[in-house]
Each structure stands twice: as structure tokens, then as C-alpha cells.
């Protein structure tokens, strides 16, 4: 369970679900925030 929760793909899945939820709820500002999170997380491993 813990290894699944800390899988590098887990934050991506969480952000994707949050993004869909904010779109459905019409919370545009939060959708932009999720977009920022996705862009930031996509750089995992890039230092």
C-alpha cells in the first residue's frame, strides 16, 4: 500500500483527478493551479 502511495506516478494521478474535479465544479482558478502543479511535477528528476 505504501509503495503504491509513494509511486512516482501517484502525484500525477492525484493531480489529474483534481483537475477533472475542478473543471466539473467550474473552479477555473483551481484548475490553473492544478495545471501549475502538473507542469512542476513533470520536471521530476530534473535538477
Amino acid at each position, binding site marked *: 500500500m*505504501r*509503495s503504491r*502511495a*509513494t*509511486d*512516482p*506516478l*501517484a*502525484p*500525477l494521478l492525484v*493531480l*489529474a483527478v483534481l*483537475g477533472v474535479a475542478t*473543471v466539473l465544479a467550474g473552479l*477555473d*482558478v483551481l*484548475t*490553473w*493551479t*492544478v*495545471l*501549475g*502543479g*502538473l*507542469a*512542476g*511535477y*513533470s*520536471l*521530476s*528528476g*530534473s*535538477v
Partner: protein
Amino acid sequence: MFAVGLVAGGVLSATVLWLLSGLAAPLPEVARYAVVFALAALAVPRDLGLLRLPLPQNARQIPQAVLQAGTLTGAGRFGLELGTGVRTYVSASAPYVLAAALLVASPGVLTTLITGVGFGIGRAATPVARALSTDDDAWDALLRRRTRPLITGAAVTVAALLAALLL
């Protein structure tokens, strides 16, 4: 301090994008959005390794000397430089698509800055997930194996969310 620096860096870059977004304002909305979705459409095959499309980046690592400036100061500055997204390699296409969207869609200063906060939090999620794992080396190896699906999944999700927001 590292996470604070990451968020501050994201906000700094978002501020610059918001300031520059005025330059795109005279263009017709159709043309502006076409640029975003053209870039989003190219991002997925690029991240899958099917398309070679060099994009501007600062092709170097942040110097180790930054971290040696003292524990708090060094970590904060390292985070700041990493959080800007322009001081080291940009290994995925999603940040370019988002930057283009902020430039041409110009969703407003507050929304742009909050997007920068999100970028910093997204960057901070990597060390958090790594710290929560039980084996750092195994997590690093797993990240290397997951890099392609991770960056491609991010590009697809960013494109879909932008379509929902802008169309």
C-alpha cells in the same frame, strides 16, 4: 526553506509571464489559442520520443556552490532557482505548454500567480514523495523507469485541462 524557494521561484516566473502576456493581447483570440493547442498537440509525441523538437532551455545543472551558501540560505536559493523553471534543464513539454497558455490566454494576474504557486508545489511533490518512500535509491530507480509515462501523462492532462478551460 527549499519548498518556500520552489514556490517563490514559481511565482517569480509567473510574474514575468503575466507581464509579457500583454504583448499577445492585440492578437485575435483564435490565433492565440491556436498557438497553445498546436504546442499541446506537439508535446505528446515529443514526450513519447516520437518527435524531435528542441525547445529553449538552460541546459545545465544548478551549480553545487548554491547549496554551499549555508543550510537555510543555500536550500532556499536552490529551491528558488529550481522553482523558476529557467535555471536548469526542462525535461518535459508540459511547462512550455502551460507557459504559452499563460502568455496568450492571460487569465489575470491573481490566477497567473496562483498557477506559479501550483508549479512550485508540483516541484516540491517530488522530494516529498521520495521522502515518504522507504528506500530512496529504489524510488530514484522507479522514477527513472516511470519518467516517460510521467511526462507524457502530464502533457496529455495539461492539454485536456486547457481544452476544458479555453474552448
